[in-house]
């Protein structure tokens, strides 16, 4: 039996490098069951990489990642596939299969993994589509959907097999205010109604903090701060202050490293 009071995802001392660049340098993280946890940080801090590591798509350099008590980094391919059936992931642009319509996209994982009758599948797909409000769009092709709709369809597909957790990769990027609002509400409602555990990777502070129970701030390969939105806003960390309040200058400088300004100007005539 798995211990239900333990975090669903436990990351310990995780390191990952891409070439010579350290993306993560010994981070620890706990994702609590039934909660919405946001992982935030500037672009290029490896937030998406973290989701891929949790999903076992890439292997870390060092450290452990446990999902529901199972060590992801040590799993064989078939065991990993078994675990992934219990995970749902929403990709940045939805990643719908472009040669199938909305209905078939959502039916896809059900058809691949179960022997259910077409009647049953139709009922399931209709229910999932109703949840995301797109029951009327079942016959549209992915190319006919707006960005927000495509993400909602992808959400319906991700919950098709009733997973225990959902991972959202930048769900709010490039959305108009209305579909942003819809997505924010859906993430929270799905989490609570289906008893999921959700991980949201984002840098939209406002939206992400409004639905998150816990926020992890990442920068330079480390967890800089974590807690709920209020504690982070009031935290003493300069970095957290800069990020949460969107200040242009601070620990992350406005200026790219350069020689002294006055010297640079005076030497303009001498050498370029």
């Amino acid at each position: 039996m798995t211990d239900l009071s333990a975090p669903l995802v436990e990351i310990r001392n995780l390191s990952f490098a891409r070439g010579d660049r350290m993306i993560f340098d010994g981070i620890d993280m706990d994702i609590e069951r039934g909660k919405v946890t946001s992982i935030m940080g500037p672009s290029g801090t490896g937030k998406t990489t973290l989701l891929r590591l949790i999903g076992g798509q890439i292997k870390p350099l060092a450290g452990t990642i446990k999902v529901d008590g199972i060590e992801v980094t040590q799993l064989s391919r078939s065991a990993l596939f078994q675990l992934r059936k219990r995970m749902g992931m929403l990709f940045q642009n939805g990643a719908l299969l472009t040669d199938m319509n909305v209905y078939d996209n959502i039916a896809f994982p059900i058809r691949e993994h179960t022997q259910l009758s077409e009647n049953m599948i139709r009922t399931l797909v209709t229910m999932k589509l109703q949840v995301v409000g797109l029951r009327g769009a079942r016959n549209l092709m992915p190319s006919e959907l707006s960005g927000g709709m495509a993400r909602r369809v992808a959400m319906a597909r991700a919950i098709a097999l009733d997973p225990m957790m959902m991972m959202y990769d930048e769900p709010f990027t490039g959305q108009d205010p209305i579909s942003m609002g819809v997505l924010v509400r859906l993430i929270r409602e799905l989490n609570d109604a289906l008893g999921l555990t959700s991980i949201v990777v984002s840098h939209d502070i406002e939206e992400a903090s409004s639905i998150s129970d816990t926020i992890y701030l990442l920068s330079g390969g480390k967890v800089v701060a974590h807690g709920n939105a209020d504690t982070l806003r009031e935290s003493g960390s300069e970095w957290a202050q800069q990020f949460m309040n969107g200040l242009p200058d601070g620990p992350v400088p406005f200026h790219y490293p350069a020689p002294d300004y006055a010297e640079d100007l005076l030497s303009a005539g001498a050498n370029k």
Partner: protein
Amino acid sequence: MLDFIQQLGRSGFDFFQRLGRASILFGHILAGVPSMILRFPLVIQQLYSVGVLSLLIVLVSGLFVGMVLGLQGYNTLVDFGAEESLGVMVSISLVTELGPVVAALLFAGRAGSALTAEIGLMKATEQLSAMEMMAIDPIRRVLTPRFFAGFISMPLLAAIFSAIGILGGHLVGVALLGVDEGAYWSQMQASVDFYDDIMNGVIKSIVFGVVVTWIAVFEGYDAIPTSEGVSRATTRTVVHSSLAILGLDFILTAIMF
């Protein structure tokens, strides 16, 4: 000089690395064949897009190649008073050589490039990653049916190419230039051997089918997932397949004839 050697070494290294990756992928694709046979509708769908959609270009090119062969062959043979042998010349050249090779070149340009672009774009739009996260093996679901469809279609397309070419030669030689119809067909029937000519052509087209679809699916799967990466991969598919077809054609001809 040292730079040149260094570069040469690096490209050699890259080449073998890619060859290694391609071989591993080939193994994975073949491993998926048993489970795919149980789900044959997936292959039928691909047979349509890989095979049936290549039919028009193969038919039209086959007809013209046959007509040119009829014309050129007649002009040469008539000098020796041997125009009755036109049927043999047209059919042997098509069945053993032009059918498999030209059909494979057309197939690489039409179906191979489309396969690479499709798989490359699926990778670029994270569809393959999404499948993996849904615990569905993209190699088995996407690559194996496409590979198998290419493997089945290529010999059939080459056969159709040869057949329509022979009709093209007939059209020019018999209907326009007045070669005796009976001689055209009977000499062909007497001289073309089923095992030595037709089967060897079929073997060639099977080999080309495997190689072209292998290159096409590998390039798509291995493409850098950006628009530039996919376009480069598509170009590479056509160039590498064409070179492979012509090189292998020489080797196979040397072995079999």
